[in-house]
């Protein structure tokens, strides 16, 4: 069923820069059917566009998965990403 890489971006601290990362990997088979549907909906909704955070210092989440056509990546606002994906990330200093 595959995996989704979840990367947390922005926020007050500015995740996503050269030194500060926050990411995790989720096995899709471990998700509930509803969460899998929500993830698929995000890839559909943000395939051709992204959206700025609704409020200052909110996070964005970059989701990536492998498809037959290659890597597919979308960015979604914090409030639309399922909690189980958001809980998968951990911060790293590089």
């Amino acid at each position, binding site marked *: 069923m595959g995996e989704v890489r979840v990367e947390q*971006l*922005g*926020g*007050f*601290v*500015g*995740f*996503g*820069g*050269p*030194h*500060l990362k*926050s990411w995790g990997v989720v096995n899709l088979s471990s998700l509930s*059917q*509803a*969460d899998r*549907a*929500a993830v698929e*909906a995000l890839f559909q909704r943000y395939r051709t566009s992204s959206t*700025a*955070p*609704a*409020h*200052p*210092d*909110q*996070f964005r989440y970059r989701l990536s998965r492998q498809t037959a056509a290659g890597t597919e990546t979308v960015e979604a606002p914090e*409030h*639309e*990403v*399922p*909690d189980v994906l958001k*809980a998968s990330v*951990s*911060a*790293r*200093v590089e």
Partner: protein
Amino acid sequence: MISTCTIVPESVLKRFADDPELSAELRQHFRNALAIDAQMRAVRQTATQLTLEAARVNQLAGFAPTAVAAAPAITLFDCKHSTALPGAPIANPGSSPDATAKRTLTETTAVAQFYQSLFGRNSVDNAGMTLMSSIHYGVRYNNAFWNGSQMTYGDGDGSVFVDFTLGNDVIGHELTHGVTQHTLGLIYANEAGGLNESISDVFGSMFRQWQAHQDVKKADWLIGHDILGQAAKAKGFTCLRDMGNPDAPHCLAPQVKHFSQYHGGMDPHISSGIPNLAFYKITQAVGEHSWDTVGKLWYGVITGAVGTVPRPNMLMREFADATRAAAKKLFPANAALASAVDAGWKAVGL
């Protein structure tokens, strides 16, 4: 009949609307809630636009906003590691055994006093709006944010970041997003987003300097110094951002520092390095305290006191030129100030 409650996140409503294990009738109720939720968001956006337009019209007519209170009430809520806002109200936070609650009350009150005593501003809306803060948001949440009506603080993961209320510049930064919302109304994207972020760093740092009684030479101009955890400090990082040296190696989140480096869609926390550095350079040239003169220019521009018209998509050059005009209007006899403002912006390519 299902009652619609906008406190339920949109993602949850969508999940239930698509859940095949629920009855068709129940799924339709969630779709109805989603439709109403979308309309509520549109109404909220329109309300923001109406607020800005009303403020603009009042300003042009010379009307002052009616204050609901002489000074803002400060209220605190405990999310207890959930993400439901605002959380459980904290009675008497000043005597709470929770140090986070006490500190948030103290610092939020101080930010309100900062704006009142230095700029004559009564709360974020200049009308005594209650300042609400929610603490212990989420689990090991590495963030703080203003959501349009309140502040929210996470506890940090304890490794890279600690409790976000430990940074008084963080608290000043977040509250200032509320001020920007009620003044320039800058969107959070492109150049306007960078300006939005910079204004919060500027006034957040200014608040920190004011509390410490520091002039511009004594101040360290670091953002986020007090919220770094051991994992960050152990690698030699001393701050998130440095207003005086945006791309320095000790910055955990380095920024660009010249307009030639800017591109559309850049994260506002990166592009804010440009106006941050301009503010720093101007204050270094002028001296004294950051709020004495240069801070007054910035405040005059964002509140329209010097004729700035709120434009949500404001460009950095427009803001720079507004501060140049403000220097001549507010301090007409101070040629050195006008020169410093011009030089500060030219140094960053504006």
